[in-house]
């Protein structure tokens, strides 16, 4: 369902960027992406509650080229045998596949951190989720504006 607010945003977007709007207005694509994101999220966390905090996701707010975007994740944790980060997952909302990277680590890592470079297909929200040794999940999100999308050939948005 399109709310009034979404309709206005889409209309504005279609005036501003005709190619982006074409893809945006395909209702199935947007819905499929959202479903894929939810499914990936469920696969990672199951029925557990995801809380905000403890995770710091760093991405540049404005990205010229979506083909290579520096991304780093740091999680607050003492990283001891009793209390450490077990896994870090990064998900995107609008890439063709929601998964970006999944890291498995433990107390031997010393610090719960990850730095890499990713591809982003569109202006979107990127989410990092950390799984702690006690089974809890913590997350952080970053909104990014992408000027030149990765996977341009497909007109993916």
């Amino acid at each position, binding site marked *: 369902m399109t709310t009034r607010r979404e309709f206005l945003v889409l209309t504005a977007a279609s005036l501003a960027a005709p190619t982006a709007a074409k893809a945006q207005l395909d209702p199935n694509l947007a819905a499929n992406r959202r479903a894929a994101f939810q499914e990936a999220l469920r696969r990672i966390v199951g029925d557990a509650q995801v809380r905000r905090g403890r995770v710091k996701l760093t991405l540049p707010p404005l990205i010229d080229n979506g083909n290579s975007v520096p991304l780093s994740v740091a999680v607050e944790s003492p990283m001891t045998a009793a209390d450490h980060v077990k896994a870090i997952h990064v998900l995107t909302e609008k890439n*063709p596949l929601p998964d970006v990277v999944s890291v498995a680590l433990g107390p*031997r890592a010393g610090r719960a951190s990850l730095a890499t470079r990713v591809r982003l297909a569109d202006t979107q929200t990127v989410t990092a989720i950390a799984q702690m040794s006690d089974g809890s999940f913590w997350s952080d999100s970053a909104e990014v504006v992408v000027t030149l999308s990765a996977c341009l050939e497909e007109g993916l948005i």
Partner: protein
Amino acid sequence: MARAVVTLPAQAKRGEIIEIKTLAQHSMETGFRRTQTGELIPRDIIRRFTCTYNGVEVYRADLHPAIAANPLIAFTTVATETGTLTFQWVGDNGYSVTEIAPIRVE
């Protein structure tokens, strides 16, 4: 052809957290791009990166097509004992690269 670079300190104090940077040479073809004639270019990516310290796995990353070409992975580990760190990248089409780096711990 397949190459990888690993940067880490040659020596460290016991218990020190060391930073490791790894870079593998790989195009990370997503499987979503098409050629000019419209054929889909098959996926060819690195699926998994593992770092083992004297045989014990300390860090593992599962990569997906959303990782940029020539994947950079930077992380940390605790310098526990003198020995070797083994880095392995495994991917589609039988891609497999292993790098070994020694470390001296005092």
